């Protein structure tokens, strides 16, 4: 299996060679089986639903729906700033936002549901960036997804759980972060997670930054395994998440492209 076999299916939508542009309304749906484990999907379809490449200035993405894709939104190097607003993403198999080029941006009023990693902000070259990523009025749920183990890191396999259907699953984490990845400003958000990350508790830490009115719905068997920053409160009441999700969908029901797929 190689990427060449899959060619155009890796990046379904690319926006490139433009400046100060916006995009709205599109749905991108992966047709591969959602039961495929993490490493297979990574090997076969390691691309973003929407990749921004060779763009400058600002890019604004609004009212989009992405489902069952390896990564969701990839703002590329060269941008000054990006905005992701009213995006609805489900079953993203790796990073919902793959901001590994460390571009400042903001995530506003988004529904991120049943995904593996919310925000990846870890430059491959380890460079330091003084950026702040803003997250406001958003719902973010990380769920266990089919996982075939972390190759070369067998100790991580102890976080994999076999479900009643016989499929082994594990969740990712909210943030994929490094010391040089910048800061987060998160306000008025509800987060949901139910088990320890495949990477272990250390990767469940929140990045440095400012957190205000953030609720973490944690349904794990033990208390959340690492300290939480000020401004983040914990509850085990899942109805907090379900109610907020319903309200988000109802609020945008008339116009959002994701509603069609949610009703299927």
């Amino acid at each position, binding site marked *: *299996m190689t990427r*060449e*076999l*899959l*060619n*155009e*299916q*890796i*990046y*379904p*939508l*690319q*926006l*490139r*060679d*433009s*400046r*100060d*542009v*916006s*995009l*709205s*309304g*599109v*749905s*991108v*749906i*992966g*047709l*591969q*089986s959602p*039961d*495929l*484990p993490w490493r*297979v999907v990574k090997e*076969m*379809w390691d*691309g973003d*639903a929407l990749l921004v490449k060779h763009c400058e*200035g600002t890019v604004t993405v609004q009212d989009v729906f992405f489902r*069952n*894709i390896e990564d969701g939104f990839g703002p590329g190097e060269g941008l000054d700033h990006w905005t992701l607003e009213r995006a609805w993403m489900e079953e993203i198999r790796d990073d919902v936002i793959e901001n590994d080029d460390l571009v400042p941006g903001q995530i506003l009023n988004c529904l991120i549901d049943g995904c593996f990693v919310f925000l990846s902000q870890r430059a491959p070259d380890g460079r330091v960036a003084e950026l702040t990523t803003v997250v406001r009025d958003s719902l973010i749920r990380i769920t266990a997804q*089919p996982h*075939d183990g972390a190759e070369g890191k067998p100790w991580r396999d102890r976080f994999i759980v*076999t479900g009643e259907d*016989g*499929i*082994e699953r594990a969740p990712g984490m909210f943030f994929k972060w490094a010391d040089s990845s910048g800061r987060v400003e998160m306000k008025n958000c509800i987060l949901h997670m139910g088990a320890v990350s495949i990477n272990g508790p250390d990767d469940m830490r929140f990045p440095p930054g400012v957190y205000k009115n953030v609720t973490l719905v944690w349904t794990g068997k033990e208390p959340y395994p690492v300290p939480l920053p000020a401004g983040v409160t914990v509850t085990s009441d899942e109805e907090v998440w379900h109610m907020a999700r319903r309200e988000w969908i109802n609020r945008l029901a008339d116009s959002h*492209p994701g509603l069609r797929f949610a009703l299927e």
Partner: protein
Amino acid sequence: MTSRLLTVFLVCFTTGRPCFAETEQKIPPGEYHEQFIIGDLPEGGHLSADGVTIYGGNRTITRPSRLSSSIPPVIAIRKTESVIRTRISS
């Protein structure tokens, strides 16, 4: 593989004139099974893709032998359709 890529050519949606800043352009609604590469939008322009669905990852693959037997083989849900070439016009 490059020849299989779909390039979307854009002119102004509202007027049909050559594109200027802050114009709105539109991808025709529909379902697409080929990659979209959208480039050289006018500065400050907005691209509307209401009613547009792009499908990806629809390849039939066999189950890799290293996988657990609990993982079912992959079944392609849809067949890739022919390339759609669209020139967007007013």
